């Protein structure tokens, strides 16, 4: 069962265990430059607002009603990362335009171990993009579906689905009870927003029109997708919940809901110049290999150059100086004890 609470999706499996609760939030973030550099993790700038598509039966396309799920508004000048929180272990599969973000394969409802097509929370605290190499992702950035930039369009040749698709499987009750005492602390990746600069920027940066947005591959970021350390049999494959998250631009959001989307976030350059922090996450866990299929997806800037198009008006490289290191198992501010 999935509930929408405070702009987060809350997955609950009371039939499996009372603790089997997973929260998934969609964090707004800076669009990192789409250049040849590798960037650390950008901050969270607050949650994207979420609404049930069923609440707007007359405003959304028929296909959205058929898909069910929720919707969120996204500017092309921003990016998105997905935050997983909760203490109970979950296997989570994420796709964009029904293209698996870890393997690049087409969507299937089940789990696949070799190659691993899912992530494991809470070991995996977040996902920022498509896994193109071991330890490297390309950031999720929104582009109008049909413009040819999304990973879906590049891999399938069709602009059919758009949006994000998520399915979560809890750990079996017996497996959870066996391992519950071996757990580390949760990590928080905090957010900063230079509010004045953001408020000064123009809100109307997009034209209304097509409803659907698809996720393309943006700049490169250092992020590992961790190998599943549980036994594959520990996952409760009889219990799962899935959700279609539709993406739309800010103007269409306003037309559907009558409400304002959040203000435009700062650019990476403005954020860095303000001296605000980026993040680096360290864990001893083993990382999975990147997807060869996803590595063939051209980034938005690269494809734009080929098309003679300028899809990203603000894309200059950024010098990152203030990086906060987050380490798995350590609480914020806790001093690490080494070997001596």
């Amino acid at each position, binding site marked *: *069962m*999935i*509930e929408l609470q405070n702009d987060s999706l809350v997955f609950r499996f009371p039939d499996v265990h009372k603790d089997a609760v997973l929260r998934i939030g969609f964090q707004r973030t800076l669009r990192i430059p789409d250049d040849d550099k590798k960037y650390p993790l950008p901050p969270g700038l607050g949650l994207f607002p979420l609404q*049930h598509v069923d609440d707007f039966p007359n405003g959304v396309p028929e296909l959205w009603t*058929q*898909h*069910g*799920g929720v919707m969120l508004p996204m500017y092309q000048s921003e990016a998105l990362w997905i935050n997983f929180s909760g203490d109970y272990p979950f296997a989570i599969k994420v796709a964009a335009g*029904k293209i698996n973000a870890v393997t690049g394969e087409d969507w299937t409802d089940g789990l696949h171990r070799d190659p691993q097509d899912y992530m494991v929370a809470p070991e995996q605290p977040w996902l920022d993009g498509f896994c193109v190499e071991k330890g490297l992702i390309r950031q999720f950035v929104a582009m109008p579906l049909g413009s040819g930039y999304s990973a879906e369009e590049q891999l399938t040749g069709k602009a059919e689905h758009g949006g994000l698709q998520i399915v979560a499987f809890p750990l079996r009750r017996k497996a959870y009870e066996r391992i519950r005492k071996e757990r580390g602390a949760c990590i928080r990746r905090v957010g900063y927003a230079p509010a004045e600069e953001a408020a000064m920027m123009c809100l109307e940066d997009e034209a209304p029109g097509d409803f659907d947005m698809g996720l393309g591959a943006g700049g490169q970021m250092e992020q590992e997708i961790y190998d599943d350390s549980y036994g594959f049999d520990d996952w409760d494959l009889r219990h799962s919940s899935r*959700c279609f998250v539709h993406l739309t631009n800010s103007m269409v959001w306003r037309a559907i809901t009558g409400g304002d989307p959040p203000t435009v976030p700062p650019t990476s350059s403005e954020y860095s110049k303000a001296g605000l922090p980026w993040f680096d996450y360290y864990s001893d866990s083993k990382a999975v290999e990147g997807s060869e299929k996803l590595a063939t997806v051209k980034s938005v800037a690269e494809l734009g150059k080929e098309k003679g198009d300028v899809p990203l008006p603000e894309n200059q490289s950024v010098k990152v100086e203030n990086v906060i290191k987050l380490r798995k198992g350590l609480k914020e501010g806790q001093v690490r004890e080494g070997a001596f």
Partner: protein
Amino acid sequence: MSQFGAFIRDRRERLRREDSRFSVRQLARRLGVEPSYLSKVERGETAPPSEAKILLLAKELNEDADVLLAMAGKVSSDLQEVIRKRPELFGQLIRELKDMPEHAVLRLVREVRDGGW
């Protein structure tokens, strides 16, 4: 004296002990009614006022608007609209919920619907 009138009088009098703006005269002025009319309402000598006036009264007395409307024998127009849109569904739902304990009603959640994709 009606339950609605007595309740209004009791709340207003309590506030008036601390603040003279809650005299019948001053409160009636803010509500846009005659003091004699508010007095009659409090004594139950006339029917409770309109929904709009009850909403104003709830705001002035810092009381829950739905509770005041219910005491006046009314249901707020937004709730009526909700029920009118899906009368069969909400009729059935409310009847099923009527005997449930409050904690169970509060745990009533809305599921994110999964469709075909």
